[in-house]
């Protein structure tokens, strides 16, 4: 939400001489709540452009709803489910962020470079981690890596002892795609159980939210590689400017913008840049505005983004490694920057299947 606000503030709330009015609504990662909130914004508050929502199944639900409102333009927030733009895409739903699968491209190769020949996957059991695991495994399996066990755990699980007991002795690393409190819980329990295998993280496993965790166990994260659309230590000037702007606007925020802040920023910036390009012209069912969005090459703090034929972003992925700086803060060092990652992970669209519990598979 700070990211979206930042994009508006950078323009002082004015685009093409008109004031942008931002109306906010709240959801709780549940698709029904998100659709209710969206319906209120669109039908009651009469917004012209809708930016959001946050999580995967919310995104799918809001995309379905967007089909019933053809005169409003919907731009994704941070939801990263593949099906949102791959399966029955909606003509007025745009996503300027890459999805969960794209965020992991390059990580398979990086893991093999680290010498991890066999890994176990531990991930939450819903669409977003499926796509993350797919992004990792597509490349990893093709290059000869093996994944003998995949453990799908319920979202918000507290007890990982049964999963930890299932970790085979002969795997070289654990691919952990857990978010927020789940990741912290898992790390605690894994260390208490005497685990010492190196970790490979999902995009939200080692986001700023978790690196800022104040517990003693966080040192175990050092050396973890991960794939993400964001890297704190990225050296490019546009990223530095973005971070400085973020800190200036939100002095009580995180030391570095989180993935969600960045992604909301990108999508909100796309909405505003598009508006600017058409000089605020939203007539004719916003046709001109949408055409502009479709063709736009968006400048973001992490590189250029353009859209494919399903209005899904083709963009940059970073491979990062967690290291400790002089003050003891953890941060993600950039190992590699991969540009122009597309949604089908480089495969022809006909061959590409949406990730699931069993897809892909290489035991």
């Amino acid at each position, binding site marked *: *939400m700070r990211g979206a606000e930042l994009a508006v503030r950078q323009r002082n709330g004015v685009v093409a001489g008109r004031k942008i009015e931002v109306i*906010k*609504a*709240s959801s709780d990662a*549940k*698709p*029904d*709540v998100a*659709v*209710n909130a969206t*319906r*209120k914004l669109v*039908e*009651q508050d009469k917004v012209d452009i809708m930016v959001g929502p946050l999580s995967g*199944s919310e995104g*799918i*639900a809001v995309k*379905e709803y967007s089909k019933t409102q053809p005169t409003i333009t919907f731009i994704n927030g941070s939801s990263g489910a593949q099906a949102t733009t791959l399966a029955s895409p909606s003509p007025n739903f745009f996503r300027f962020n890459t999805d969960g699968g794209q965020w992991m491209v390059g990580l398979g190769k990086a893991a093999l470079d680290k010498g991890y020949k066999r890994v176990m996957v531990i991930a*939450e*059991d*819903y*669409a977003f981690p499926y796509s993350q695991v797919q992004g990792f495994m597509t490349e990893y399996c093709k290059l000869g890596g093996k994944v003998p066990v995949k453990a799908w755990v*319920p*979202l918000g699980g507290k007890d990982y002892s049964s999963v930890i007991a299932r970790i085979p002795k002969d795997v070289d690393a654990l691919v952990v795609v857990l978010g927020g409190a789940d990741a912290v819980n898992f790390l605690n329990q894994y260390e208490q159980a005497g685990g010492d295998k190196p970790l490979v993280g999902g995009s939200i496993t080692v986001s700023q939210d978790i690196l800022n965790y104040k517990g003693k166990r966080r040192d175990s994260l050092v050396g973890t590689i991960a794939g993400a659309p964001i890297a704190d230590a990225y050296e490019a000037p546009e990223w530095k400017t973005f971070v400085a702007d973020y800190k200036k606007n939100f002095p009580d925020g995180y030391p570095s913008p989180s993935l969600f802040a960045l992604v909301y920023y990108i999508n909100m910036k796309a909405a505003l840049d598009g508006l600017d390009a058409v000089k605020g012209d939203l007539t004719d069912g916003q046709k001109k505005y949408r055409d502009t969005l479709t063709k736009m090459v968006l400048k973001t703090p992490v590189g250029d983004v353009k859209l494919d034929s399903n209005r899904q972003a083709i963009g940059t992925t970073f491979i990062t490694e967690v290291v400790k700086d002089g003050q003891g803060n953890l941060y993600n060092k950039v190992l590699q920057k991969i540009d122009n990652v597309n949604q089908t992970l480089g495969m022809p669209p006909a061959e590409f299947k949406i990730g*699931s*519990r069993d897809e892909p598979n290489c035991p």
Partner: protein
Amino acid sequence: MSAADWRRAMNLQPRRLGVPPGRGPAPADRAPQARARRFTNPVRVHHLLVLAVLLAYPWFATPFFTYQIGAQALALGLIALSLTFLAGSGGMISLAQMTVAGLAGYMVAIFGTAATDGVTLGWPWWLAVIIGIVIAVLAAAGIGWLSVRTEGIYTIMITLAIGVAFYYLALQNYAVFNGFQGKQKVFPPMLWGIFWRDATPFYYLTLACALAGYLVVVYLLRTPFGIALQGIRDNPRRMHALGFNVTAHRVAAYAVAGVLAAVGGVLFTWYNGLVTPGSVGTGWLINILVIAVLGGLRHPVGAFLGAIVFVLLQNFAIDVIDRERFNLVIGVVFLVIVLFSRDGLLGWWAALSARMSTQRGGSPWTAVRKRSYARSSSPSPSSPS
């Protein structure tokens, strides 16, 4: 049995709220009159007025208000009505009503069509709905059968336990319930050229079901079954001594409430277009209780009043105050209503009409209101014996 219990058991006069003893007609005069009127409760002007407003509502409301406020409140009200019936007339507070509703929704998705992995059998919608409701009612009767042996807070605990167990079953079972993602795209059918999920048709669909549910409950409370149920609420021991099968009556009440919750659940699933474990999580179990208590348990209409207030707050509290604090407004409003009224919104209504009648020396209309309250239910949800 304590002395107080004994006195209560011997007390022939039904307990009433808001009407001090000695006011209103004596019970002895009322009994034959009430019996004669049991099946011919007269329709009054304000009934017709409310009905007219409800029917005309989509014509002056925007699609948003028709669908998200109107239809949602009616569907939620129907689910809450099942709790109002159980708690207000049966003295049993079940937190598992949303579980029954969610089960019906899941069954419709499983036997009918849904665009998700896991089982969807793709049977015709009417068959799926019938099967869904039957299974949900059986489950409701099962829940009732398990929990009727308990009283008061233990009923709450056991139904909460069942509700939470079902939540985790739905969350962790992938073969049938499809886990965290639940069932997506569960839509009402296309029938007679109308897509029943469009705002106005869906509103009338929920209105028809809600009205039917309301009338069924109002009617039931006047039947021998309903009277016996209220007797059991007030004093199960005495009803047992009179030869009533207390357990059977209570289980039957759970089954009846199950029908209401199941129909409401199917509507609510269609409203959302999906059913996920989140729809049957503890949040919603409690929300149904909040709706029922907010409206008031003394009369079936309370469930719908509560639902309207609840839905309005959910949607518009965010406009009153900052995005980060709007849950505070919702909480404060609930607190104020419950704190200042012993029986939700209906309690305020009763207090208001009681005051009006003392000022005017009692109009016939308020006298009728009081009589119908006294007859239909008592405020105390928990059985005191």
